[in-house]
């Protein structure tokens, strides 16, 4: 019970689960946070209308079913009956409308996900209608692929408590918060998906991977996703621990600033693409726990398309450079310590590109500065990853369309623009997939991004923790987990 001390390790009766995550949530308002660590917690406390299944296909969530009109401009969602908030009050269509309107009206960070949504209404207590002004093919993944679209409680929001004591409808309810240390959730026995099998779920914040692993080995925690990459091999051999991985949906890439010479020349960008040994990068950053990919979308994603035009080929790279008339190229590469893989990659790439006569000078800044520099275009090249995308459009449009919000590398290709726009309008899944695959190939050919890899989602847990599954979207779900004795 709360107030009698926080469980530090396995709870006294051995029935709770302690999971170590690598950092502390900044806040627990799902609409306002953008921190990965927040979502790890919120995944278990909030629900969305629909949610991705293991195959990343959208399944019913708070909405039991939905219907799309002929013109694809009206979406009607029918909500589950008998859903209650953690405080016992009843959940209804108004809550959905309130949540969505909040995001749109307050122009919160996820407002872009409602692009094209004209109106939201609740004709009755269990129906929500979304009216669009243009067809949005991937509306489901937009509103269900991300807990930032969670349905929140109006009173909880207005009292301001949502930031630290969120009230959701999810499988676990908020119990206790120790800043800097841990958050504890307890099972929501009335959850619509069935009561969780564990009474409590504690997230501890352990930034240091070796510490997290040590704690897991010592039995202080039951689960972690914060495993030192170089130890993955060893842990997987360890009989006393379970370790599993899935090819993740995230991807990491390099982008050169095409507003600056000579990066406006595709040959230079391609030279970089040829000059890089992705395997070595993967080895250095992830100790092999990643899949090399020359496009954004991983194999496990329904939108995957195979394409790998580049091989590690310094001769070719050098030739391309020579053809572009570039010599003694110095590249200022923006990396950030908040994402250590960028720093390591920077050093690896520096050593690789040295062989084709390019000097890479990594510039390590904190992420705030990094974002600033990216926004202002003050870089030659940068590395970063995109996390948590599901739909093909999410992978390409904003990044590579001439008008894309995140096209910081200033790529502009009429053909790609056309293909991406077509992808938005296409209705058939197959046709849509083809449009995007074509666009992706073109993007890769132009080396708008130099794609590097999809990191594996690697998680480890104690064997007593049964029924846990590693998901390729990285969502950490404890709703079905059991603890064996």
């Amino acid at each position, binding site marked *: 019970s709360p107030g009698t001390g926080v469980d530090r390790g396995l709870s006294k009766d051995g029935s709770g689960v302690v999971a170590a995550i690598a950092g502390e949530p900044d*806040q627990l308002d799902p609409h306002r946070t*953008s921190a990965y660590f927040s979502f790890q917690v919120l995944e278990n406390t909030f629900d969305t209308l629909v949610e991705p299944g293991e195959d990343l296909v959208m399944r019913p969530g708070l909405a039991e079913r939905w219907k799309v009109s002929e013109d694809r401009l009206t979406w009607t969602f029918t909500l589950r009956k008998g859903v209650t908030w953690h405080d016992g009050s009843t959940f209804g269509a108004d809550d959905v409308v309130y949540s969505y309107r909040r995001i749109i009206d307050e122009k919160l960070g996820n407002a872009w996900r409602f692009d094209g949504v004209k109106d939201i209404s609740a004709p009755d207590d269990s129906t929500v209608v979304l009216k669009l002004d243009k067809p949005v093919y991937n509306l489901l993944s937009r509103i269900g692929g991300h807990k930032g679209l969670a349905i929140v409680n109006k009173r909880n929001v207005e009292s301001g408590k949502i930031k630290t004591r969120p009230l959701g409808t999810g499988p676990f309810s908020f119990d206790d918060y120790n800043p800097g240390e841990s958050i504890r959730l307890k099972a929501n026995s009335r959850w619509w998906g069935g009561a969780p099998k564990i009474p409590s779920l504690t997230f501890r914040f352990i930034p240091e991977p070796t510490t997290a692993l040590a704690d897991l080995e010592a039995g202080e925690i039951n689960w972690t996703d914060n495993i030192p990459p170089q130890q993955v091999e060893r842990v997987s051999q360890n009989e006393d621990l379970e370790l599993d991985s899935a090819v993740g949906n995230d991807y990491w890439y390099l982008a050169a600033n095409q507003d600056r010479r000579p990066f406006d020349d595709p040959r230079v960008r391609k030279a970089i693409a040829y000059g890089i040994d992705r395997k070595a990068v993967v080895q250095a950053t992830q100790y092999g726990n990643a899949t090399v990919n020359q496009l954004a979308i991983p194999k496990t994603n329904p939108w995957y398309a195979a394409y790998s035009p580049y091989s590690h080929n310094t001769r070719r790279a050098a030739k391309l450079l020579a053809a572009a008339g570039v010599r003694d190229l110095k590249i200022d590469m923006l990396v950030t310590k908040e994402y250590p893989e960028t720093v390591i990659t920077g050093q690896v790439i520096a050593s690789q590109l040295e062989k084709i006569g390019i000097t890479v000078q990594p510039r390590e800044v904190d992420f705030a500065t990094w974002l600033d520099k990216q926004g202002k275009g003050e870089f030659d090249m940068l590395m970063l990853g995109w996390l948590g995308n599901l739909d093909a459009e999410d992978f390409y449009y*904003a990044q590579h369309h001439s008008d894309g919000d995140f096209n910081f590398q200033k790529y502009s290709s009429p053909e790609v623009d056309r293909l991406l726009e077509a992808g938005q309008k296409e209705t058939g899944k197959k046709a849509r997939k083809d449009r995007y695959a074509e666009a992706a190939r073109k993007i890769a050919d132009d080396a708008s991004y130099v794609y590097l890899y999809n990191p594996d989602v690697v998680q480890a847990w104690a064997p007593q923790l049964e029924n846990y599954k590693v998901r390729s979207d990285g969502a950490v779900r404890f709703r079905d987990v059991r603890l064996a004795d």
Partner: protein
Amino acid sequence: MLRFSLARAGHAVVVLLGVTVVVFTLMHLVPGDPVRVALGTQYTPESYEALRSASGLDRPLISQYFHYVGSAFTGDLGVSFRTGEPVTLVLLERLPATLSLAFAAMVIAVVTAFPLGVYAATHQGRISDTIVRVVSQFGVSVPDFWLGILFILLFSSTLGWLPPSGYVPLTEDPVGWLSRVIMPATAVGLVSGAIITRFVRSAVLESLGSEHARTARAKGLRRRIVRSRHVVRNAMVPIITVIGVQAAILMGGVIVIEVVFAWPGLGRLTFDAVSARDYPVVQGAVLLVATLFLLVSMAVDLLYARIDPRISIR
């Protein structure tokens, strides 16, 4: 006493105002934008503007400053950009971790430094003195965070005796607290202790050679009394200064140690807040730390006056 306190408080207010000006200026010179950080990687320009004005960042700097100082006087340090919590609350949550680490470290430092320094001074020139001097010289030169890393390597990774990091409030679990505080506190405590040892030694040495100590000896007082009543006591003023400086530094949060040991103290909070451009938290934390610093130096001055009647604080 009252007058002294008032005068010092006045001085403190001036210094604190200066501190706010400096942090405020620095923080607003920093490139990077708290709004961008808060929004993450995907957002629209409208969202950006909305959050910016909600955080009051669209007002002129001067008006932001005066607004800040004005409400700071009433104890309202604003709201964290990142968590939306009141800064005062955020700071109060972190304060126990920092203070308990500082306290443990100071205990270790003083408990080792005092006897060692006095012993070395009273055995000047002997082997034992040399050993103390060498060891304290080592202590002064060792990077405390490296010491911390070595401790983790040894006591956690290799021997598995102690948890490598984390924090448990003392009030909830004293044993857990102790097992976690011991490594960081020892790492910083030994360094502070080494510094203090050297000051204790030289202050006691000087006091030993003083003419009034000679008078005390000439009175035929026993050596123990000469040392305690005349030598050590008179050496206290410089020693207290140094202990005060060390305590102030520790209370400000030993950032690097807190990072190494994942200690949720003020230092790490501030460091993270700088990275996230969470201005209100940075400002609040610096203000708090500066206040602690000023309180410590005031306490040191009061202690002086208790020890030394020549210092009048009427």
